[in-house]
């Protein structure tokens, strides 16, 4: 087997995540402008990076239309003022768009084809509600290739509850409270300030500076969550309080070969060891992270106890609790989502993988004893992703 190089995470930034509502942060902001802002911020933070040496710009979005269309990576490169010689492309794997962009970028570097790549994701769910611009093939249902519930994410979560009775609503609500608490603490501790960059957005009342996430509800209690109704099923368990919201956001990471990082005077934080994408039953898409992590651990001769930190996307509390149960971890384990997650902070579809990656990097960089981490997500239409990272040693 050919020797692979290291693909290292050097830096990452994201915008504050907004609510996908008419009065949300980004209601009057274009998705591509949000992506451009992340690229500009990366350039500003990394003055040693010569833009002409960027080999590619990979940007993900689920809805590849309108202000998120036009071959996003290339458009964003031009709009961000990168030299015309820098190419770019767009990518889509629903929730794991940015994650896939990061994997592609890392693989290009590992094989020696590219040295410096920007990989990110953006989703403006206010402008592009999920599935609003989609035309599902009638064969899906006519030939019973999938169950109708597979096309509604909340319903897949209810389906998962059906399969795992041990994952009760009460446990899910407790998980949700933890997400809010940890997010609030991370905000207060300045964790997000290390990689969340402010943006100036247009509103009906003039320009506005946004510098922190819009979605969190700190102080949320179990009582608050218990009172919420379940919109996907009568008497159901999935609520707005124990699921991620509908959000707008953008994030981008800078990946480099070890030599390129050195050449720009930057310190590589972590390197990608391995990656797995699997398909699972679309009706219970939330189970995705489980087989994905099982596979990536097995392939590398590791167990979950060898992993110091996991950034698991919280599309729904049910799939997080299912994950914890599978790996025999307590509900409040600090090993998973130490900085809270999507239930509190939001889940702009294609962008979340970038957020998970940045948070993982921050954890590894600020915890001396931590060595290995995994970013993992469940994905619509039934998939799971798991990326294995290892801290770079000086």
């Amino acid at each position: 087997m050919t020797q692979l190089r290291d693909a290292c995470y050097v830096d990452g930034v994201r915008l504050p995540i907004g609510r996908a509502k008419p009065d949300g942060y980004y209601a009057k902001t274009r998705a591509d402008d949000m992506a451009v802002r992340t690229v500009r911020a990366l350039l500003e933070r990394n003055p040693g990076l010569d833009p002409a040496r960027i080999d590619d710009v990979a940007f993900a979005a689920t809805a590849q239309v309108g202000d998120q269309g036009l071959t996003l990576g290339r458009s964003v490169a031009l709009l961000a003022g990168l030299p015309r010689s820098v190419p770019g492309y767009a990518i889509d794997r629903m929730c794991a768009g940015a994650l896939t962009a990061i994997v592609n970028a890392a693989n290009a570097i590992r094989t020696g084809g590219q040295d410096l790549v920007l990989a990110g994701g953006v989703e403006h769910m206010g402008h592009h509600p999920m599935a609003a611009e989609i035309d599902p093939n009638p064969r899906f249902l006519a030939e019973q290739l999938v169950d109708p519930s597979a096309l509604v994410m909340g319903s897949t979560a209810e389906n998962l509850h059906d399969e795992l009775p041990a994952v009760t609503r009460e446990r899910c609500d407790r998980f949700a409270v933890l997400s809010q608490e940890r997010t609030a603490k991370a905000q207060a501790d300045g964790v997000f300030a290390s990689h969340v960059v402010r943006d100036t957005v247009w509103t009906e009342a003039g320009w506005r500076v946004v510098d922190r996430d819009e979605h969190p509800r700190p102080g949320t209690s179990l009582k608050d969550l218990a009172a919420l109704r379940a919109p996907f099923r009568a008497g159901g368990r999935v609520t707005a309080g124990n699921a991620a919201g509908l959000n707008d956001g953008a994030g981008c990471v800078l990946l480099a070969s070890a030599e390129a990082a050195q050449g720009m005077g930057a310190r590589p934080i972590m390197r990608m060891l391995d990656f797995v994408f699997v398909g699972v039953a679309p009706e219970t898409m939330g189970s995705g992270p489980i087989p994905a992590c099982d596979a990536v651990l097995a392939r590398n001769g590791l167990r979950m106890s060898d992993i110091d930190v996991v950034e698991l996307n919280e599309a729904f509390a049910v799939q997080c609790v299912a994950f914890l149960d599978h790996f025999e971890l307590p509900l409040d384990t600090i090993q998973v989502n130490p900085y809270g997650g999507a239930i509190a902070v939001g889940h702009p579809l294609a962008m979340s993988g970038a957020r998970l990656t940045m948070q993982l990097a921050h954890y590894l960089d600020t915890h001396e004893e931590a060595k290995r981490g995994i970013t993992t997500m469940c994905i619509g239409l039934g998939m799971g992703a798991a990326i294995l990272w290892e801290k770079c040693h000086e």
Partner: protein
Amino acid sequence: MSEDPTRFHVRYSDSPKAGRLALVTLDNGADYRKPTTFDDAALGDLERALDEIEKQDARGVLFTGKPFIFAVGADLDRFAGADAAFARRAGRRGHQAFGRVRALSIPTLAAINGACMGGGLELALHCQRRTLAKSAAPIAFPEVFLSILPAWGGTQLAPRVIGPARALEVIVHNALNQNRTLRASEAFARGLADWLVEPVDFLERSLQILEALAAGEAPAPDPRPDEATSRESLDEALERARAFAEARVHGATRAPTLAIDLIEFASRDGDLAEGLEREEEALAELLPARQAQASVYAFHLVQQRVRRQPWRPEAPARPVQKVAVVGAGLMGAQLGALFLQRLEVPLVMKDIADDVLKRARGHIEAALDERVARGRMREGKASFLKSLVTYTTDDAPLAGADFAIEAVLERLDVKRAVFAALEKRVSAECLFATNTSSLSVSAMAEGLEHPERVVGFHFFNPVKVLPLVEVARGTRTDDATLSTALELAKRIGKSAVPCRDATAFVVNRLLMRFMGVCIEAADAGTEFRDVDAATLALGLPMGPFPLLSLVGPRIAHHTAQTLHEAFPERFPESANLARLAESGLPGVYDEKGQTADAVRALWEIRKPAQPVEAEALRQWALRAVAEEARLLLDDGVVADARDIDTCMILGAGWPFFNGGICKHLDQIGMSEQLFGAPLVGTRDAAEAAPAR
């Protein structure tokens, strides 16, 4: 009450480094097509915003605009009919509100994100510092062009911020040079901003600078491009400005004079408060005066009305994908170059002489090369456009033309022959346009199988500079042809005014009427120089005799003859002009600007000589033009007096501050005196129905 009131929205951002910062957005709730302006209510809103900011204990304030627009000054609609008291109040109001911005003890930064003119630029100058986006344009003080002056502190602050010479350049010279505006890089070079910023990061970078200022740092301004330092003293700069203003307007409006006086006051360390009071006095004199009122009227005509094309018939315009120019002489070559650059469609240049075609080719290709040299066009594109042109003495390549314009000899028989030959080659829908200045469009259409596609399309020299095209409708011209002609004029960046097919249409008829009076005055023994001086005091761009040299005595005489044939009582024959035309002399003046001896020899003066005194000459000339304008309207040559004014401004360069000419005649009471009513009615007749 304004439809789109300007608000000063205030938002706050808490910066860890600098504390609470106020972010003020100027917005009128409309998009860039309705730029943000200031009226009394807007200034009130600014004061309200400042009150709030003071209460919030902000550490710094940033002002910026809605996308593409910072602010473009006072709302001109408020100016019509203003009196001295209103003007004084308006001046005071702006001083008060903007003065509060200047008086803030915390750092203020104007983040100029887009168009910034007049009061908008004044607001920016009241801030301590300014950032400017590279994409922002236009930047200007257009007030003097409108016969007022920057009266919200501009005349006092500009010299303090950018120096007296540059203040004079921006406020006086640019305004009187066809209202020249600046691009961001030019504005930055002149010191109007401290930082020139990439548009993509503009607000973020501006915020960072404000943070630095609020935190007590001294962020260094961006280095300005090296400019050769002028060794001109203040006195020299002022004298140069005064000489320039005199040469431009000959005292016909006091605006440049007062502006220069105010800039001088500031430049000689005049007290700011007193300087602002003087601004108020100056505005009180200028705004109600007829010059400013006429300028507002003119502004509306050329910026809004003529672009709307109110006379456009409903018939849809036909596409124009191939153009032919018949007659490739000086005029034809200019037309070819214009059509090629603006339309970028195949072009046929036809002439009977090879050497004429060769010269035309040289002209057309040189025009493209010049654009490439100035970085306005890629070389590959220029090559492609050159390849679109066919130069031919043969008729065959004319096939397929949608629009053919003739610029051949000014003789009816020649033009009719051209059209007859053309008709054999092109479709029935191809427009036959004539650039004639005095022959009959209807006569040219006679005998053709399809006369309805013939239309006058009269340009003014130099074609590159003068924006007017008179679109003359013959008796048989149909609606589709008129629509197509009007649409085409738009596409080539010209302002079209439709008229009936009357001799010499509008501009040349009025100019010749005017000229006729001047020639009669010379015939009576008035010195040519004195005639010119008398008329320049009206504010015209040039005197009649330099104009005669520019046009050429031969052509002027030809036009005069044609008008004499059409309207003998009002356009008498001039034997002197005929002799001058025949003599081959270039005009009445020699190279030294004196009356040429040869001219004195041939110009017969009536005996006894009775030179006409200046004021009497002006009255006489104005009465003649008034009479002719009234006839143009009564005969339905144009729909409305506004059309006449638009033509004289855009085709003859007659000044904004006369509102063309009809507005001027109304303002000085001559229309009332002669006709019992103003020429410019309250109702715009062109809105009522398209030109018939």
